[in-house]
């Protein structure tokens, strides 16, 4: 189990034990963390699992695949530290990861 910190838009931190191999998106959806819609179910076909990753974690994440940046163009208020949480697979290296959930997805 790996600890992932989800900070919702109202500034509440939800620290969740997520099984390695699941994605950050799945960790949120399975634990009813508000603010991650994941309409397409993890297929990188929408941008509704958009999160802002805390700067110190950016280098530790898997690099973006081609389609992710294209989808992020369609996200709500994308920034340089934007990622799609369905593309972030949880592993020991991500223990303590902090992601901020935007005020809305659509």
């Amino acid at each position: 189990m790996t600890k992932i910190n989800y900070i919702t838009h109202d500034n509440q931190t939800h620290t969740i034990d997520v099984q390695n191999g699941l994605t950050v998106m799945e960790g949120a959806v399975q634990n009813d963390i508000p603010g991650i819609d994941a309409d397409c179910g993890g297929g990188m076909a929408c941008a509704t699992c958009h999160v802002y990753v805390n700067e110190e974690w950016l280098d530790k994440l898997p690099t973006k695949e081609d389609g992710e940046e294209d989808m992020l163009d369609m996200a709500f208020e994308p920034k340089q530290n934007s990622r799609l949480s369905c593309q972030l697979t949880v592993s020991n290296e991500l223990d303590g990861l902090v992601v901020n959930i935007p005020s809305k997805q659509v």
Partner: protein
Amino acid sequence: MIKKDVLIIGAGPTGIFCAHQLGIIGLSCEIVDNLDKAGGQCIELYPDKPIYDIPAVPECTGEELTTNLLQQIKPFNVKFHLNERVEELKKVETRWHVKTSGKQEFDVASIVIAGGVGSFEPRKFALKECEKFEGSSIFYSIKDKTVFKDKTISIFGGGDSALDWAIELSNTSKVNLIHRRDGFSGAESSVQKVKELNDKGKINLYTKYQIDSVSGENNIKSIKIKHDDGENKEFKTDYVLGFFGLIMQLGPILDWGLNISKKSIEVNTENFETNIDGIFAIGDICTYPGKLKLILSGFHEGALAARGCFKYAKPDEKLRFEFTTTSKAAQERLGVKK
């Protein structure tokens, strides 16, 4: 009022194939979709991207899949009502009356919701003050390009719509193209063309910039954009166009009294009927234990929902199970009987 056995909401692959299954068992239907063409997410999100998990089709694009499905339902002459969204639903004795945004009215025995993840709407600027200029100075689609002639237009986005309109409007207008990063998701040839036009001074390209503020009274006078490193630029503009793709919203369906769980409609797995008799839900929009959001699951769900519709359309008849290979009735309906 259009009288049919079934109304299908959503012209994606699941909705189209359900129309086929209805046709095979002799039920009539029409299809409503908010988009301007059939195909749903396949056409809107990934027309050129290959799909590898359609049974017996090793590889096809979203567009090919749609074309083939439309070909497959041709014998049934199914009418599509595009650019229309279903707004109102009313039960009248044993039938359903449905009204669309285009004021079309249907009288049907049952309804199949194949609405994917909702109807597609353009994504708008996150900036609150943009709302009051929407429709006057800010647009998310273009109906009449002549209004932009000899004006200054600021286009936001990096996909095909943004690039194509930047190129097109640069012939008659002063065009600024603003995108949040250096890369573009639009076609490479369009990206090259935009860069050429930028070099020639026909388009002003600003990358790694996003909108910061807009100002003006009734119409926009100027906008401010902000670079990733914090630097601001302000310039005069007459119109602002935003092309950020489409988002999906369930819309009025949410108010129909259906059991909804996590933005999906709960159904049984016997015939994909919802908690309301005569209303079925199939494809990405439905949920049940073990639901997979695959096109092939949508086909299966559509086949069963079509049979579920039968008892509402023809309460006095019994549906007999038949194969298209051998059924004379099915072959007649397909127009292939020799």
